[in-house]
């Protein structure tokens, strides 16, 4: 029923048609174009490029890293989620906050921190005289990525643990199962959707990561892609690598959807008001503190301490105010328009999705999310190839960078706008229509005021994400356009830790704002849920 109406609206309202078309084209055309360009090479060359030992090794490294990170993040996130939801550990709130804070440390900053801590010139050696072998390769990438991505899993597992209806556990206990058996047979199976959702985020993060693997010099698809681009730039091979990375991402998305099938139905909708009776840790609480403290020390204390140490070092020799200012301006001048554009594009997409839910509108939203899930390096490369081939005047312009940011981060903008739209049910607009307003007038006088807050949150999310973005900026920034992220990365790449510190610190500040916003939003969402219940 709504399919025809969604199509009707797309046909008759340009202010919906244009943004939707822009998003669909912006995400799909470059990726398709990349595919077509790769296929233009003669079959023999293509065969040689794709079927070679090196690719197999890259595949092995990429998958191996993803699995490793999933394993480590689970080992960190699961006990932490359990400690903060199911025990009587005092200070659970602080521990929760500490478990979320690493989101404020982008991967490349974490990698920089690990590099600057270890080795002969590292912080450990300089302060404690402790020479720890310089982290690099698999172990370095594994540690850096795990430390900055486990919050995704932690948050999802927490929500899942809180969502389990205590009545289920109590029934199982009454049926004669021990506490441990209940956890194993009743609680754990219900955590699967949460685990898969968090795991997907971690997995996509690893696949898309460029900053960590490039600094740790660990050969994954992204790193090879970067090397191709930076050194020889064999366009066809780069395109092939990007496509293989893309295929891997799609495979992960499918795997997740498959594993999730049928599971979501069992999930309890909103959090239950009643909490299950917490486990009394008694002496065990010291183990809990040791674990939580250790994790917090590594994932939050270490970055702050290390960046602080090198910053102090840098302040002594004078801060590069001019360069810091110009890179801050560069970051802002790309991020602000990107945030505006993303919100502008996300509004009609979210509107269609909420008001005319159908397979059509779902497809449109999925495309928007595909732009988010696509490894940024592959996405940026596709945009370069497309621009050079079709609109060469657009290459290396700020406009292209802004568009790329907007298309990539739009998914972050859709969420808040969607939830804001749920606050403005469709019959409000209908009421406005029956009181004499045109379709656009009804939207402007009723729906827009109600979704303004959500819109602001969207803009903020995209702005802060774009501020710390690295791989897209790396490939698409105009010549001489040096953002905070680019400076942090390139100084770290050359082991100039002191020089990198001011940029890293500024980034961490903006990222912390991002996390703060995320937490406030979570809290209002929970607040609204309890109020509604």
């Amino acid at each position, binding site marked *: 029923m709504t399919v025809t109406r969604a199509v009707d609206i797309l046909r008759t309202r340009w202010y919906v048609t244009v943004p939707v078309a822009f998003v669909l084209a912006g995400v799909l055309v470059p990726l398709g174009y990349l595919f077509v360009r790769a296929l233009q090479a003669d079959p023999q060359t293509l065969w040689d490029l794709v079927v070679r030992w090196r690719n197999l090794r890259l595949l092995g490294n990429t998958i191996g890293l993803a699995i490793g990170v999933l394993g480590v993040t689970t080992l960190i996130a699961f006990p932490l989620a359990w400690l903060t939801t199911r025990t009587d550990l005092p200070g659970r709130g602080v521990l929760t906050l500490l478990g979320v804070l690493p989101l404020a440390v982008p991967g490349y900053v974490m990698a920089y921190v690990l590099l600057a801590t270890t080795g002969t010139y590292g912080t450990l050696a300089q302060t404690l005289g402790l020479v720890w072998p310089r982290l690099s390769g698999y172990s370095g990438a594994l540690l850096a990525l795990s430390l900055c991505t486990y919050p995704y899993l932690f948050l999802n597992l927490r929500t899942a643990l809180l969502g389990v209806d205590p009545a289920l556990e109590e029934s199982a206990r009454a049926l004669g199962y021990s506490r441990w058996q209940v956890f194993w047979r009743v609680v754990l199976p219900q955590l699967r959707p949460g685990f898969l959702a968090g795991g997907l985020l971690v997995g996509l993060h690893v696949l898309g990561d460029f900053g960590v693997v490039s600094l740790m010099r660990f050969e994954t698809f992204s790193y090879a892609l970067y090397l191709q681009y930076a050194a020889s730039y064999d366009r066809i091979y780069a395109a092939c690598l990007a496509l293989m990375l893309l295929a891997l991402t799609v495979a992960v998305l499918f795997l997740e959807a498959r594993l999730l099938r049928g599971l979501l139905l069992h999930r309890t909708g909103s959090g239950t008001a009643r909490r299950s009776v917490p486990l009394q840790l008694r002496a065990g609480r010291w183990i809990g503190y040791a674990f939580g403290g250790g994790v917090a020390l590594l994932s939050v204390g270490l970055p702050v301490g290390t960046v602080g140490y090198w910053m102090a070092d840098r302040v002594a020799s004078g801060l590069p105010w001019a360069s810091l200012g110009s890179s801050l301006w560069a970051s802002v001048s790309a991020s602000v328009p990107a945030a505006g554009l993303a919100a502008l594009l996300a509004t009609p997409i979210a509107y269609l999705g909420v008001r005319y839910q159908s397979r059509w509108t779902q497809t449109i939203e999925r495309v928007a999310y595909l732009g988010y899930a696509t490894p940024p390096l592959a996405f940026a490369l596709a945009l370069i190839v497309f621009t050079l081939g079709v609109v060469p005047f657009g290459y290396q312009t700020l406009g292209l960078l802004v568009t790329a940011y907007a298309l990539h981060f739009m998914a972050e903008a859709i969420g808040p706008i969607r939830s804001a739209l749920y606050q403005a049910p469709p019959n409000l607009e209908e009421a406005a229509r*029956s009181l004499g307003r045109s379709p656009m007038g009804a939207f402007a006088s009723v729906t827009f005021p109600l979704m303004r807050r959500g819109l602001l949150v969207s803009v903020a999310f995209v702005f802060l994400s774009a501020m710390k973005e690295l791989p897209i900026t790396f490939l698409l920034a105009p010549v001489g356009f040096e953002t905070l992220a680019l400076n942090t990365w390139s100084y770290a790449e050359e082991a100039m830790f002191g020089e990198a510190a001011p940029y890293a610190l500024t980034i961490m500040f903006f990222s912390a704002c991002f996390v703060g916003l995320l937490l406030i939003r979570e809290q209002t969402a929970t607040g609204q849920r309890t109020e509604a219940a």
Partner: protein
Amino acid sequence: MSEPLLSVQHLTKRFGPDAPPVVHDVSFDVGGGPSAEIFAVLGPSGCGKTTTLRCIAGFEHATEGTVVVQGRTMAGPDVHVPPEQRGVGIVFQDYALFPHLTVLENVAFGLREGTSAEQTARAREALEMVGLDSFEERRPQHLSGGQQQRVALARTLAPEPDLILLDEPFSNLDALLREETRQEVRQLLKDKGISAVLVTHDQEEALSFADRLAVMRSGQLDQVGTPEDVYYRPRTLFVAQFLGRTNLLLSQASGREADTPLGRVRLDREADGTVLVSLRPEHLTIAAPETVDGPMGTIVDRAFKGHDITYLVSCENNEYLVHTDNRELYEAGDTVALQPLEPAVVLERKSTPADVPSGVTPEPSEP
């Protein structure tokens, strides 16, 4: 009735070209002006009554048929006047008050002519009309359900539409408030001479609120008439059952009389052959067995309700429901004689399934 205010003719609505019609060939008129009337569309949920209303309001495009308001074709072949140009007010089930506006701003929302001072004055008038003038600065979410309902009504009435549509407007109120509000709203509409179309699944509401009503089933109107007409002379089994419980008798009719399981019974109209007839519980009574020679039954159950008593009487393997006043006192197990007080109503054969048993109909299920 002279020229009707609203005329719906052969209205059909399909969602999608191959989908079955949700509203099928629906026709009715609603009077306006001096003969302004309140019309109710009554039916179970999913019968298409709300879709009919939304076609009149203009939120849905009619697939076939016409909607004419005051002689102006709003919907018809190649015509679809957008809702904002129809001058038809609507009150939604959940009121749809704008949460970002105050009560006064809500009511003034539809007033677009004159200066803003004039608009405010008119909005105040509308609020006064519903007795909420002291609440104008509040936000709608801080009002009770009944107050929100009245704000919604004031907002709809403020632009002075000739016709208002009411989409289950009382269903979110609790039982006590519902009846009171219903009477107030009816009085208000009558005082102002405004025509209204009410959509509801509550038979009591339709019977007490409307001047005329239509009973809708699976997208079609089974019967249109005054409340008394529809209640006492249901045309189909569905209407008979939907408006309350009734007793069905599978009978052999000849002329104005029929042989029924309860003996020979008068009919409301002529019929021949096998027919299904309906007798409301209050049109049956029971008497001591020795006083009359009718069919005998046994009291199975009784419910004393103070002002009246409901008996369930078993007779030849069927059970019948009888409402009597509180002077007929019997106990379960007593033998009584069953007596019809009024002619039985012959139900249309074409819409009656073949295997309907005689006896009392089941409690209508809550839609």
